[in-house]
């Protein structure tokens, strides 16, 4: 157990910045600042209330420094933890610690990316690894492709089952007005799309978008005085397992099994209690791996679990109701947008894609090449 007090802190404001494709010259800081001001407006707070600043971007070396200057604030506490797409779940854990310890009272977590405008390679340059880069893996997709190859080999998972993940995401996206993708997608479409890194094709891979957003956290006591219903932080967990894919001990087993177990233990719940799961679907295999490692099905049964539209609208269990990184938006590091959707589901703000009676939401972030895993459990009540 981690010593944090379940439900001591809540997410009180959430916002997306402009998503998809933004105007030429827009910077990641422009998107972060837009998200911060919108998220503060969402809960009735202002910039002068913010005394804790958390942010991550692939395009800024000193992210909180740059954002604090842009916003004109002097935070008492700040943290630019950068572990890829799961950074923002990690920030929640760190913000919760800081708020509990009195290091700050109102924390903002922000992300912004212009990777569509600039190109992925420009926005997220990769380090040269002398033991991998010369073999020219197309990263990150080749790493996830090899994980898929291994999952298919060990468990008989099929490309049709992976395609189910993309189709479910698309069906959810068609219910989300701000989703990037607007056209229906079939399993046949996914299978006939050009391969990028076998067995993964274009439709198994996430979008490359501009975008960002922000969320606001404060103590549970203050949260109850604000505009919207609090989304209490009931459980957090984070774990690293490797940095390069050749260092991953078992390509079918992610550290989500550890981060998830930590979060469930802190919250005193199990996967069976979760009403909606938002998991980081950079590639179709991710959803399969995370549903297994977070306990929604047994190891090796993720392919069967997603079959037959089971995780789409009207299915057995709602997953990635915003349309996911596959069909809604993927701005470089997608984790922040998973948290936005989790809070909106708990508040009942999701319109035609709303999960009825949603009281417990799981948001799971992934970074690098299945390298960093961080899980957050949010609830509409603390009891």
């Amino acid at each position: 157990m981690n010593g944090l007090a379940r439900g001591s802190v809540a997410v009180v404001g959430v916002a997306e910045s402009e998503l998809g494709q933004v105007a030429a010259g827009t910077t990641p800081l422009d998107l972060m600042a837009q998200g911060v001001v919108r998220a503060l407006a969402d809960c009735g707070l202002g910039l002068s209330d913010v005394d804790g600043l958390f942010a991550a971007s692939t395009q800024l070396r000193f992210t909180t420094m740059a954002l604090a200057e842009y916003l004109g604030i002097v935070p008492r506490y700040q943290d630019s933890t950068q572990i890829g797409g799961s950074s923002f779940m990690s920030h929640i854990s760190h913000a919760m610690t800081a708020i509990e310890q009195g290091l700050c009272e109102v924390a903002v977590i922000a992300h912004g990316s212009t990777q569509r405008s600039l190109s992925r390679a420009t926005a997220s340059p990769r380090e040269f690894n002398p033991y991998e880069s010369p073999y020219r893996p197309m990263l990150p997709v080749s790493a996830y492709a090899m994980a898929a190859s291994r999952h298919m080999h060990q468990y008989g998972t099929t490309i049709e089952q992976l395609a189910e993940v993309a189709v479910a995401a698309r069906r959810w996206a068609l219910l989300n007005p701000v989703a990037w993708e607007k056209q229906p997608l079939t399993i046949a479409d996914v299978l006939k799309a050009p391969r990028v890194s076998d067995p993964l094709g274009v439709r198994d891979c996430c979008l490359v978008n501009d975008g960002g957003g922000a969320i606001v956290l404060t103590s549970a006591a203050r949260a109850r005085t604000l505009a919207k219903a609090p989304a209490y932080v009931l459980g957090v967990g984070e774990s690293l397992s490797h940095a390069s894919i050749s260092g991953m001990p078992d390509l079918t087993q992610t550290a989500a099994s550890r981060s998830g177990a930590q979060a469930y233990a802190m919250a005193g719940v199990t996967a069976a209690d979760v009403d909606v799961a938002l998991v980081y679907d950079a590639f179709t295999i991710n959803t399969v791996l995370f549903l297994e490692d977070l306990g929604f099905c047994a190891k090796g049964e993720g392919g069967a679990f997603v079959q037959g539209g089971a995780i789409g609208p009207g299915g057995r269990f709602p997953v990635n109701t915003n349309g996911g990184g596959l069909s809604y938006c993927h701005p470089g590091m997608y984790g922040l947008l998973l948290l936005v959707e989790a809070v909106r589901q708990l508040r009942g703000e999701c319109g035609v894609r709303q999960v009825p009676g949603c009281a417990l939401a799981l948001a799971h972030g992934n970074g690098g090449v299945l390298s960093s895993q961080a899980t957050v459990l949010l609830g509409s009540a603390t009891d």
Partner: protein
Amino acid sequence: MPSSAGQYFSHQPLGAHMIDSQFSWFDLKTESPLATWQAHCREGRLAYQATASGRAVFHPRVVAPGSGEPLQWRISTGLGTVYATTVVRPRDAEPYNVALVDLDEGFRMMSRVEGIAAQDVTIGLRVCARMVEESDGVTRPVFEPMAAL
């Protein structure tokens, strides 16, 4: 055999756990893990590291992961099994293989399997390392199916 320059492994295994150094701390003013490994490659040897208890370590580093103890260089037989594989399909170039290979001595590395079509590389395939001097002037290991040797 392909005509690439560089030195080749014998088709006969070199003998596992061939030891090339004592356990010692790196003097990073005079040697680095990468330069030492690459020097072995230029001599046609696939080097890896091991702990005193015999646990294999790769990528090369200055201390053993998990324990911080010094490491010893050893030479692999170059025999291994494909653990995971993909075919990379660039938009404007020929497809090629990228694989993770589990060497018989107990370490894993990224490489590619040559000598068969990229899509015919399968998990479980037995492969043998071969050193190739590549276009960047660096000699590094690639693999070929055992059956093709």
